[in-house]
């Protein structure tokens, strides 16, 4: 079932099947529902074999970048010379995204099982589940689940008598979007400012505490147990060749049924918005959709007939991102909405790179001025210039993230900007 609504188009794999079912939160309940059945099998597998299954399944990173998970794991050294770490990225902070929190709060043991199997695959001895600080109620649920799992021998020393040791620690952040960027996350986990670092070194060479590290998103790791249990072909029954499987879509904004839905990859964006979520409420028309979380390009209502895959959304000029469409109805003031988005990025810039530190703030101020009716036409040129100078110039993609919605809003809704300037 989806949450808080469900729909016929949904595919409820283990990922979302138990959303809304409090029973799944406890170890006992979870075992009754069939939980922790895959871990013993994984413990009997060679780490490389686990990676191979995940590689074959075509599972791609659900944090937004869509990098093939199995390939990422294969970057880890095969012959460990010291500790390896797995970081579960539960710093879900992309405006529009609220899918990981559903996993954290409804199926914490699924996540733990996924973490352990992944840790096994990459030979990690410690898993850090980095949960954004604001998620107190959800990090508490995951923490309780981890403690239960320790007590039952699923986590810790000699797991299920296999001789394999793996610790799990829930580590909470404290308010920083940039801690969701993988190097930012590791900086933060090490007790620092969540400042991204320039690669190399890549995490698989020298990540957290200078050791080989893999950072995976919550949804990615939660998909691992069923893939290992059911096999790559089973997972590939959904989706496309390049974007297989199912995906949690979290839909917000002006919708009749906003929420998180597990849908097969490849579903048309318009079906997600109109069919699954019921379109805009009160019979309003939709003006624009930011399909993959706030850092993806806006689409107009006419551009929604696109395939909900990494490739399909790119072809449509946007990105699947975290599959978090933010829907804006016909009454939405695009400039004001864009200003609010820009304000977010200005607030969240870590401040290292000049283009981002100064550019995000300038963008927000400039948009605010236009919104107040004090803009001039040359401000639009300046915004385009900012788009150009904030793209591909910085250590991490935060500056690029504001450019995607901004440039597309300028391209597609220039009349709204001009109207505010001319009024």
């Amino acid at each position, binding site marked *: 079932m989806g949450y808080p609504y469900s729909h016929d188009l949904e595919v409820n794999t283990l990922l979302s099947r138990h959303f809304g079912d409090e029973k799944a939160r406890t170890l006992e309940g979870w075992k009754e529902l069939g939980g922790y059945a895959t871990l013993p099998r994984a413990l009997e597998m060679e780490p490389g074999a686990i990676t191979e299954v995940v590689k074959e399944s075509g599972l791609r990173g659900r944090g937004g970048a869509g990098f093939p998970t199995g390939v990422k794991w294969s970057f880890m050294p095969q012959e460990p010379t010291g500790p390896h770490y797995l970081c579960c990225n539960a710093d879900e902070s992309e405006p529009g995204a609220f899918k990981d*929190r559903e996993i954290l709060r409804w199926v914490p043991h699924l996540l733990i099982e996924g973490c352990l199997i992944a840790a096994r695959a990459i030979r990690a001895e410690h898993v850090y589940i980095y949960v954004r600080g604001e998620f107190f109620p959800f990090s508490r649920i*995951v923490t309780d689940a981890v403690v239960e799992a320790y007590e039952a021998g699923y986590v810790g020393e000699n797991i299920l008598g296999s001789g394999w040791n793996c610790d799990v620690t829930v580590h*909470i952040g404290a308010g920083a979007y940039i801690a969701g960027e993988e190097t930012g996350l590791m900086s933060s986990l090490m007790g620092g400012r969540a400042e991204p670092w320039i690669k190399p070194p890549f995490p698989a060479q020298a990540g957290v505490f200078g050791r080989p590290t893999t950072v995976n998103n919550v949804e990615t790791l939660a998909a691992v147990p069923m893939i290992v249990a059911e096999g790559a072909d089973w997972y590939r029954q959904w989706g496309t060749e390049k974007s297989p499987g199912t995906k949690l879509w979290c839909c917000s904004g002006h919708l009749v049924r906003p929420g998180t839905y597990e849908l097969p990859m490849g579903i048309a964006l318009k079906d997600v918005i109109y069919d699954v979520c019921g379109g805009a409420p009160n019979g309003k028309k939709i003006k624009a959709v930011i399909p993959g979380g706030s850092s993806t390009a806006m689409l107009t209502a006419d551009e929604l007939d696109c395939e909900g895959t990494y490739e399909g959304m790119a072809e449509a000029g946007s990105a699947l991102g975290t599959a978090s469409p933010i829907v804006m109805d016909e009454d939405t003031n695009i400039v004001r909405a864009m200003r609010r988005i820009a304000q977010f990025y200005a607030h969240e810039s870590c401040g290292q790179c000049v283009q981002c530190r100064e550019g995000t703030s300038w963008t927000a101020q400039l948009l605010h001025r236009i919104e107040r009716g004090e803009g001039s036409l040359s401000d639009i040129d300046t915004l385009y210039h900012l788009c150009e100078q904030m793209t591909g110039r910085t250590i991490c993609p935060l500056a690029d993230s504001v450019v995607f919605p901004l440039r597309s809003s300028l391209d597609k809704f220039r009349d709204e900007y001009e109207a505010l300037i001319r009024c």
Partner: protein
Amino acid sequence: MKNPIHPAAASSQAFQIAEIRPIERLFEDDEGRDRLEKALSRYPEKRAALLPMLGYAQERNGWVSDESMEQIAGALDLTPAYVRSVATFYTMYNKHPVGRHFIQVCTCISCHLHEADEVFERFLAETGTRAGEVSEDGKYTVIEAECLGACGFATAVQVNDRYFENVTPDQIPAILDELD
């Protein structure tokens, strides 16, 4: 001392809570030492316990004072300046005391599309405060928050460690009543 916590939980305790238990010296009682020791046991480097300890300071005192930062620096072999650099990077560490009910209204894009600005204004009006200040009775501080990650449940409001979802302006008096 609260019930001893599992070491795996030492770095994930909620630190924005209503029932603070103020303490001057963070690491001179059993609870503080226990928390420090357990957090340290989870990482190969001492420094990694910094966020958990900043959280502990706020959990106890409601905010992170300069004195707390110095004590944490001492406990983790860091300089106070470094601790402050980290503490000021993260928005959730209060560098000043806040009201007992710390109300954060998400006004980011999805909530913005759902009256978030009105919800925020209404909270200010009902509590008689300006953004960020502590109400005269010490009960409330209201601030605007960036995305709280509850976009499908707009407007999202966080009060200490609780989420209130689908909040509309007219529900606010009832929410405030419930808090008291």
